[in-house]
C-alpha cells in the first residue's frame, strides 16, 4: 500500500474556549493539487500548522508521508516543502546568502532550478532580505521551498502578496513541478495550498476542500463540485404556494411566482421531479467556484 502524502483524521484544535477545528478529516492522494478554501479566520492556517506538526492538535492525528506530524523525522522533513503565510527570513543576509544557507541543510538541492526561478521572478540576489517587499519575500519563500524538490509541497496563501502576473507565473511553476514529476515517472509530487482566491484554485487544483465551521464541508474533484451545485430559476404559472420547497437546497429565494434556488445535489432527475410536483418551468444556471463558495456560506 502506498502511504498518503498527507493524512488527517478527526483533527481538533482548541485555543482557550475557541474550538477552531472540530474534527477535520482530509486525505491528500499522491499526485494531487488540492486547493484548501475557506473564509478568513476559519482555521486554514491552524489546520496546515497542525498537519505539519507546527502546532500540537488537541485531538486526532495527522501523518505526513507516513510519519506522525508531531514527531517528523529528518528524512520526512527533507521530502517536505512549506511556505508559511508570512515568510520570516534573515534580514541581515543577502538573498543569495539565504539561498546558499538554506541549500546547505538539504542533501538534495537543485541549484539550476533555483537559479532559473530567481531569474524568472526577478529576485534581486545581491539585495539584503530586510528591505524586500512582502511579495518579494513570499517569492523568496517559495523558491526556498522548491529548491530541494519536495514530494509534498504545502503553501499557506502562497499568492496573497503577489501581483497578478507573478501569480500567473507561480501557478505555471506549480504545474511545471507536477509535470516534471510525471515525466520522471515514479516520484509523484503532491501540492496543498490554501487560498481565498477561487480563480487560482479553478486553474491549477484538481481537487478542492472547503473548510467551514471547523470541518471539511466538501472535498472532491472541482469538476464534480461544479456539476453538483447549480442555481435553478423556477417560474410557476401562479404564485408559488407557501409549502414550496426543494430538497437539500442551499438557498431559496421566492418572489411571487418566481423562485431562485441553489441546490447541492443537482441532477436531471431533480429538475424533472420539481417540474412535475409543482408544475413549473425551470432553467439551470452553472455556478463558478466563487459563486459556489458564496452560496455555501449563506450568500
Amino acid at each position, binding site marked *: 500500500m502506498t502511504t498518503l502524502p498527507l493524512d488527517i483524521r478527526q483533527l481538533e484544535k482548541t485555543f482557550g474556549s475557541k474550538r477552531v477545528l472540530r474534527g477535520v478529516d482530509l486525505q491528500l492522494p499522491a*499526485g*494531487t*493539487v488540492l486547493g484548501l478554501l475557506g473564509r478568513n479566520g476559519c482555521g486554514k492556517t491552524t489546520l496546515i500548522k497542525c498537519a505539519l506538526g507546527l502546532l500540537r492538535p488537541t485531538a486526532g492525528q495527522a501523518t505526513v508521508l507516513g510519519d506522525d506530524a508531531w514527531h517528523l523525522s529528518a528524512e520526512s522533513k527533507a521530502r517536505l516543502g512549506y511556505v508559511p503565510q508570512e515568510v520570516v527570513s534573515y534580514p541581515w543576509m543577502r538573498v543569495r546568502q539565504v539561498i546558499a544557507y538554506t541549500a546547505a541543510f538539504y542533501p538534495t538541492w537543485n541549484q539550476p532550478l533555483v537559479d532559473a526561478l530567481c531569474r524568472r521572478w526577478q529576485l534581486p540576489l545581491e539585495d539584503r532580505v530586510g528591505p524586500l517587499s512582502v511579495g518579494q519575500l513570499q517569492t523568496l519563500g517559495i523558491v526556498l521551498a522548491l529548491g530541494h524538490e519536495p514530494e509534498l509541497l504545502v503553501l499557506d496563501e502562497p499568492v496573497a502578496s503577489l501581483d497578478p502576473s507573478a501569480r*500567473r507565473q507561480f*501557478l*505555471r511553476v506549480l*504545474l511545471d513541478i*507536477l*509535470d516534471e514529476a*510525471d515525466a520522471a515517472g515514479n516520484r509523484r509530487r503532491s501540492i496543498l495550498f490554501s487560498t481565498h482566491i*477561487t*480563480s487560482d484554485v*479553478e*486553474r*491549477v*487544483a*484538481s481537487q478542492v476542500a472547503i473548510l467551514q465551521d471547523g470541518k471539511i464541508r466538501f472535498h472532491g474533484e*472541482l*469538476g*464534480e463540485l*461544479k*456539476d453538483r451545485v447549480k442555481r435553478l*430559476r423556477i*417560474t410557476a404559472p401562479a404564485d408559488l404556494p407557501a409549502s414550496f420547497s426543494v430538497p437539500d437546497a442551499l438557498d431559496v429565494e421566492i418572489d411571487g411566482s418566481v423562485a431562485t434556488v441553489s441546490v447541492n445535489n443537482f441532477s436531471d432527475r431533480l429538475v424533472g421531479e420539481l417540474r412535475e410536483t409543482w408544475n413549473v*418551468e425551470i*432553467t*439551470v*444556471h*452553472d*455556478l*463558478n*467556484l*466563487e*459563486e459556489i463558495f458564496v452560496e455555501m456560506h449563506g450568500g
Partner: protein
Amino acid sequence: MTASANLFEINPSSGVPIYRQLIEQVYALVAGERLRPGDMLPSVRQVARSAAVNPMTVSKAYSRLEAEGVVQRVRGQGMRVVKPPKTAPLRKRREQFRMLAHAAIVRARQLGLNESQIREVLNEVTDAILQEHT
C-alpha cells in the same frame, strides 16, 4: 496531423467544469470539421501548459472522450479522432434548446414585449437563420 494546443479556449472561472469545456469543444471541432478522423489531439501536457491548467483535468476529459468513442488512445502517440461523434438523443437536444429559449422569452417579458411581439421576433429570427443555412 496533430492539432495545436491553442485549439481550445478554456475559461477556468466558468461554471462549466474545465473537463466539460474540453469535451464540448472537441465535439464542436469535430462537428465543424476542424478536427477530422485520423487527426491527433494535442497531448495532455501541451494543453495543460498552453492553458495553464492542471494536466489531470485534461487527462480526465480525454478519458471521457475515449469512453464516448470520439477518440482512440494510440500507444505512444496520443489520442486520435476516430469518427464524428453521435449526436445526443433528440429529447436531450430539445431540452437544451428549451432552456435557451426559456431564458430568452423570460427576458423578452422583462423588456415589456407582449405575446404577439415575442412570437413575431421569434419567427423573424428563425426565418433569417434558417434561410442563411439553406
